[in-house]
Every structure is written in C-alpha cells, then in structure tokens.
C-alpha cells in the first residue's frame, strides 16, 4: 500500500494541513485579547470560534458541574394528603429498594403497594379511586415533573450568560449542568435549586416603548455611550448585506406563533424606524437599528445581536431613561423566523413590560393543553388554565381593566408568550388559543404549571473549581507537559541519534493530530485529559522503540540497511498492533464506565493511540524510505 514515497508524502501533507486548519481557530482564539473577544461577542461572531475550538474543561478554567436529580419520592409525597406513618414507610421502603437494586422508584412503589395491599385512594383521592388508575396517574405526574424541571433549569441556565452552558439529560431522572468560567458558584447553586417563579406582566403601550427606544438612540448618538458606540459602527459593516432583507422585513415577520385574536393593524410605531437602509441611518439610530419590528409591539433581535442589545439596555444611564415600573424581558430561546425575502434567521423576542407582576403564578392550580370545544377556539389547540378563587378575582379585575392589552407569561424572567386579553375573564378558567400545534400548547402548559407545582430537584453531585485553581492547573499542566516532553525527546536523540530525531518528529506530529482531532470534535480538554496526552507520548515512543530495536537486531545479523528497515518494521508490527489494540480496548471500557474526568482521560488516550499508528509507523517509515530510496545507504544512524 502506498508504495510510492511521493504519494506517502502527499498523504502526510494533507493530514498536516487538515490538522493545522483545525487548530487554527483555537490558536487564533487563545491569542486574542479580552477586548478583541468582547468586540467579536458584540458583533455576534464569537460563536463561530466557540464551535471550532478546543475547550478547556472546568478543572482548567474554573466552573461548576452539577448533577441534578428529580426527587420523585418527594413528588409522590407532595401529591398525597392525609399522610400517615404507613404512607411514609411505604415511600421510604420503595426508595431504599430502588437505590439498592438500581431500579425505578415508581416501579418499586407499585410493587410495595400491591404487596402490602394498600388502598391509595386514602391518600390520593384526587387522582382516582382504583389503585391502578392512581398509579398510572402518578406515572404521568412524574413524567410531567421531569419536563417541567428540564424547562425551568434550561431557562435559568441560559440566563447565566456563560458562553457554553451544557444541559444534558442523563437517564430518566437526571440533568447534568455545566457552567464554565462562572465567578460565583454559590449563586449558581442557589439559583438552580430555587423554586420556579411564574408571573404575569402587562405589556407596555407600544407608543411608550417607541419613545423610550428613541431616547436610547439619542443617548448613544450623543456619544455618551462611546464605548459601545464604536462597536456598533464596526458591527454595522458586517450587517450591510442583511439590511436589504430587513427592509422588506418590516411587516414580514411571518407569524411563527403569533398569538390570539385578529391581527390589529395598529402599527407598532417602531416599524418605520427599524427599517434601516444605509449605514448613515445606522449611525443616526445606533440602538434601534439593531431591532426589527415584529407583530403587535413585539421587538425582534437577531440572535447575533442579543448580547450587544442586552449590554446597551443594561447601561446604568440607559436604565435611568426607563419609565416608572418598566423593564425589558427576553424570550428564553431564539426562534427561526422566515422573512418575506425567504431567508430564515434566528431571532430573540424582546418585550417591554411592567416591572412589577400584575398577577402571580401561584394562583394557578392547573394548566392543560387540549383541543378547544366551542366558540372561536373550536377544534384548535388551546391551553386551559384553572385559577384558585383569589386568582380568579384578581384576573377578573385585571382583564376587565385592560381589554385589548397583552399579558405576558414570565417564568424566571423569561417571556414565553404574550397573549392579548380579549375580554373580561370571570370565573377563573381562562384559555389561550392560537397555537400552531399541540407541542407548542403542551410547552406552554408546562411553563404555566411550573409555578404552581414545583418539581423537586436535588443536587446529587458537584464539582466546583474556582478560577484561581483553574489557572494554576493550566500553568502546571503546561509546564509538566513541556518538561516530560523535552525529557523524552532528548532521551530519544541521545539513544537513537538521527533515528531518534525521526521518532521525535513523529511524536510532535502525534500531539498536533490529537489536539486537532479534539478541536474538530469540539471536545473539552481536562486535567486528566492532559494526563492522557502525556501518557500518549509514552505509548507513541514505545512504538518507535519497538521498531528501532528490531532494526538494530537485523543490522547486527548483518543485513543491509534497506532490508533491515524492511524487516524491522514488518516484525515489530504484530507486537505494536496487539499492544495498541489492548490499550484501545481499555480506553473504550474507561469511556463506557467512566464519569467526566475519566472519560476525558480515555478520549485523549484513545485518539493518541490511534494517531500513533499513523505517526509512529507510517510517517517514520516514509522518512526512511525517502532516505534509502535515492542512494544505497551503508550505515544507519540508530
């Protein structure tokens, strides 16, 4: 295979170029100054880098890793009333068994109930009369609680504003949260475990919003906010081509989940000002040029611009411009919105709302997605809401006084939707209509229930590393790696002379390839990962040692240089193969069973071993071939 030396060199060159390209982003990123990073962030271009660089793990840059577990036993307890010792015993017993046997709690709970012949209706009459129905209902509640917890946690994590939050479901009942580079881990823990806060807030009159936006424009234009201003001027150029689409966009924002009622033609006064044609105008309106007008007074902000808009709004002097009892709130996640021009872009929605809650979420006793039965909602996807008596009274008062206004659903400071109030609602059973599909309706029902029925969540595992220790680890990791690397490299040259140099070259290439592969897969380098990398050095060297020792043996037998090299590689190969293959087996097992840190170690080791097949065998062989091809060598420096 690949007999021709030239072909082999081309293959090597291709690999080196690919590796170099993959690493380019990481190098560019790590040499960037904080100011440059901030600038890119404001332009919304930093994400491009984030997707392509080798990330440092929490242990290296500081941060918090949490495993949250849904407390299903507690949920079951919360759903029960008239609890007696017998009931507590039941839950405790089921919990104990499920932990010991690593089985599902609810399953064990069911077994216990059947075994002990307990009538659940005594405790949970709301859920049904027969045990069977109640147990099914419990399953449903648990499932529900899981999605609520995930929705709540996702929303909160996104609000931390860390660059790459990780939220992962693990199994049925666990959620892994990773926040890198966070300064105050205590705050993160408290925030994640706090009960969800659901509120309803009236949307501000679009005219008020418009004049506020104008005064913010004035503020930035006057040069008082110079720092941010320059960034925008630069940001504009990059947006120049998208402005064409924006021009058409003014009434385009084709409804994604536009909500409730006939669309009023009452123009959001913002429409005119948000259409920006040229850069001059952008300089005229440094703030509003970043906004697009959506329907009904909702402002759209391109995903890339969210950071900058948020930063501009949070400027202290700008906050002073806000009218009494008003603030801006974001939608939890960006949504794709298709403009009339046919292009689809990701937008956040920005809402200008009352700062104080107009109605508390705790008044809600239930919310459920269903199909509307009559009136305008017949056959549509709707969410039925039930409020308690006090909530019903407040809602009646609120809706009576604000017909035609919009009432935003705000969970933990994110706005999920803002339906408009069509009429005074008495009786405490409102519904929301206008969902495109059942999924959307269900999502909103989950949000609405999150305030009323908190899903109990426990932190069961955490690793927190402060920024100081992180930096110290990076320094030490780099130092140790360099030292061990230099020792090995020098040793190889002393022991194997020129051949040692060839092996060293392969070694360096090996490290480059491993880093490049990790960066390509957007992997995270942890301290154990660095340990794996260092161990890779040992293994890669071993492959060359095996080969070189064989070549020496063959030379001693009196073979020519060329045939010694040939049979050296050939006979060393089976040993290399078997030895490395077993390392691959153990790496895989480590990856399978290991948790975070161990996995990092296994991944780098695995990549390193596989890359060493290429570097220690293919690359070094190519160099030998090149050396012996042109003229017959009498001696070999080995």
């Amino acid at each position: 295979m690949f007999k021709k030396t030239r072909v082999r060199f081309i293959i090597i060159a291709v690999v080196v170029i690919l590796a170099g390209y993959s690493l380019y982003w990481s190098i560019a990123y790590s040499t960037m100054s904080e100011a440059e990073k901030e600038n890119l962030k404001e332009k919304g271009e930093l994400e491009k880098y984030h997707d392509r660089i080798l990330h440092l793990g929490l242990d290296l840059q500081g941060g918090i890793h949490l495993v949250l577990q849904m407390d299903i036993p507690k949920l079951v307890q919360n759903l029960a009333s008239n609890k007696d010792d017998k009931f507590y015993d039941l839950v405790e017993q089921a919990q104990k068994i499920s932990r010991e046997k690593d089985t599902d709690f609810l399953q064990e709970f069911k077994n216990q109930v059947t075994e002990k012949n307990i009538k659940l209706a005594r405790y949970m009459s709301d859920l049904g009369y027969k045990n069977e129905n109640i147990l099914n209902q419990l399953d449903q509640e648990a499932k529900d609680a899981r999605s609520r917890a995930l929705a709540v946690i996702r929303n909160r994590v996104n609000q931390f504003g860390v660059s790459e939050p990780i939220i992962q479901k693990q199994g049925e009942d666990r959620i892994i949260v990773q926040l890198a580079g966070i300064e105050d881990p205590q705050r993160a823990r408290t925030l994640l475990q706090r009960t969800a806060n659901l509120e309803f807030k009236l949307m501000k009159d679009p005219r008020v919003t418009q004049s506020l936006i104008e005064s913010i424009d004035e503020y930035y234009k006057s040069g008082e906010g110079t720092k941010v201003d320059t960034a925008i001027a630069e940001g504009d150029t990059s947006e120049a081509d998208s402005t064409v689409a924006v021009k058409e966009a003014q009434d385009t924002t084709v409804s994604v989940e536009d909500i409730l009622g006939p669309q009023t033609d009452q123009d959001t006064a913002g429409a005119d000002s948000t259409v920006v044609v040229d850069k001059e105008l952008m300089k005229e309106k440094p703030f509003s040029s970043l906004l697009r007008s959506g329907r009904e007074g909702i402002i759209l902000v391109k995903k890339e611009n969210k950071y900058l808009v948020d930063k501009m709004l949070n400027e202290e002097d700008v906050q002073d411009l806000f009218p009494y009892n008003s603030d801006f709130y974001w939608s939890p996640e960006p949504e794709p919105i298709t403009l009339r021009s046919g292009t689809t872009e990701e937008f956040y929605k920005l809402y200008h709302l009352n700062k104080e809650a107009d109605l508390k979420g705790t008044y809600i006793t239930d919310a459920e997605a269903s199909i509307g039965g009559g009136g305008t909602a017949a056959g549509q996807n709707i969410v039925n809401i039930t409020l308690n008596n006090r909530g019903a009274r407040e809602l009646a008062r609120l809706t009576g006084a604000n017909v035609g206004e919009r009432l935003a659903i705000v969970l933990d400071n994110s706005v999920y939707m803002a339906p408009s109030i069509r009429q005074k609602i008495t009786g405490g059973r409102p519904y929301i209509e206008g969902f495109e599909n059942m999924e959307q309706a269900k999502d909103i029902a989950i949000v609405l229930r999150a305030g009323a029925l908190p899903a109990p969540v426990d932190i069961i595992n955490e690793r927190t590393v402060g920024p100081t220790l992180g930096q110290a680890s990076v320094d030490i990791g780099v130092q140790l790696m360099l030292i061990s690397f230099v020792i090995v490299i020098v040793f190889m040259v002393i022991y194997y002379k020129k051949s040692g140099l060839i092996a060293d070259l392969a070694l360096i290439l090996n490290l480059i390839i491993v880093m490049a592969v990790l960066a390509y897969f957007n992997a995270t380098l942890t301290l154990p990962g660095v340990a794996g990398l260092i161990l890779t050095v040992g293994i890669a060297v071993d492959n060359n040692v095996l080969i070189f020792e064989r070549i020496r043996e063959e030379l001693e037998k009196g073979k020519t240089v060329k045939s010694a090299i040939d049979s050296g590689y050939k006979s060393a190969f089976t040993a290399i193969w078997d030895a490395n293959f077993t390392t691959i087996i153990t790496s895989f097992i480590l990856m399978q069973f290991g948790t975070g840190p161990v996995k990092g170690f296994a991944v780098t080791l695995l990549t390193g071993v596989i890359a060493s097949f290429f570097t220690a065998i293919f690359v070094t062989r190519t160099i030998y071939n090149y050396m012996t091809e042109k003229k017959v060598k009498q001696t070999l420096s080995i």
Partner: protein
Amino acid sequence: MQFLKDTHIKFTGHSNKAITVSLAIILAGLVSLVFVRGLNYSIDFTGGTLNHVKFSREVEADEIREAFDNQGIEKRVVQGTSRPTEYFIRMPEYSREGGIAEQVEAALAAVDPDYEILSTKGVGPQIGEELRRNATLAIIGALVAIGLYISFRFKFYFALGAVAALVHDVLFTLGIFSFTQMEISISTIAAFLTIVGYSLNDTIVLYDRIRENMQSRKRYDIKDLIDESINQVLSRTIITSLTTLFVVVVLSFAFGEVKIFAYAMVIGVITGTFSSIYVAGPLLIAWQKKLKTS
C-alpha cells in the same frame, strides 16, 4: 548508545526467587488490606464533600478544626497540603439542605475572613454507590475483554499467563495503596486500568516474540526459548519503561487527583515491567507442561 546489548540472563532460572519476594509483598499488602488498614476510599465512593480552601495567611490545622467544632460540625477531616495556606476539608455528607453550606462558610470565615474556596467536590450517596458499581464493572470488564483478545490472538494458556500477570500488578498496587493509605478515587481506578493496559503491553511484546520464536524453529527447549525471548525484548522493555517512568514521575509533581494518578502509575510501571518478565514468561512453562500432560 545502547544498554543491555546481547544479554543472556537466565530469567526462568531465578524466577522462583523473584516471584517469592513479590508474593511476600503482595501477601503483606493483602493482610493490610483485609485485616489492618483497609483502603482509603475517597468521597467519590463514600459520598461526602471535599473543599479545597486557601487562606490569606498561614493557618494551623487545629485552628480550622476548632472553628468547625464551634459551628457544630464535628465530622470533618482537615488535611494539610504542601502549602501551609491551603487545606483540604472533608465531610462525610453531601447536602445542600439544612444550611450546612452556610455553617461551613461561617467556620471558614472565623478562621480567616479572606478565605477562598478553590474547589468543591460533592458526591451524594446514590452517586457513590453507582460509581463503586461502575468501577468494579470496568476492571472486571477490562480483564475479561483482554483475556478474550489474547486467547484469540495467541493461545489460551498465553491468556492465562497474561491475566495472572495483570492480577499480580493490580494486587501489588492495591497493597501499596493500603500501606500508604493513599486515596482510592475515580482517578485511581483510571490509573489501575492504565496499569493493566501498560503491563499488558510489555507482556504482549514478550509473547509476540515467544510466538515468533516458536514458529521459526521446529524443536526447542521451552525454558531456553523463553529466556532467549525475554533477553531479545529486554532492551526495548527497559527503554520504554524508562521513558514512561520519566513521564509519570514528572506528572507526580502535579496536584490533586492527577498526583495520585501519577503515583499509582509509577508503582504500576515498575510492577508491570517486573511481572511481564518474571510472571508472564515463566508461567508459560508451568501452564504448557500442565496442558501437555493433561
């Protein structure tokens, strides 16, 4: 440059003595493991909280203990580090409820208001159990997978020799960990598996040579053949062990889990080299005789 050129050491001749010495150490380790000191499991397996705290001045461990006592937290282990301003404080429980976190903060502030928590690790009881299960599965899984692979690539009695050498290494390292009371954490388990892999490399290189020599000659004395094979790969074994040793010795200057990982590896590299020469090779003679007579 070349060490160990053309050696003819009769390894199988004195392997009994060597194995006796190492068995004695393993036995002592096992006694310590089972009857005397046991193993020092980290909170990864027992559950609990571990805080790495840095104070702005040099602090005595007793000061910290007293401050924790005053807060009513009596179950705590205060352990110094190589730096007099930094301590590890370990508590047997991990809970965010009941204000324990606040109590800990109050205790630390009483020692020195300018304290900084460098890192926190918390493991709930469920996780501890799970990790123990997973770690045991990982080690058994690795041994089985390796045994299968070797039976497939070599012969069955080779696999027996290799696994015996691996068990030797793991027991030896465990014994040392029991003597020294170094912590068994998730990283240590990773180190054990790496040791298994590493020691296996040596064994496989040797077996590969033995197999090659068996195939290339028609008649041989198994003892001589094994001795010759060990001598042939000896140079490689020593060089690789040395370079790996360099690397892991350097690594042992790190801190935290990586340090313990490196210690385990230092022990593992030494015992791995030993076992491939004195356990894996000579055992083949015994197995082969048994298999031939039966």
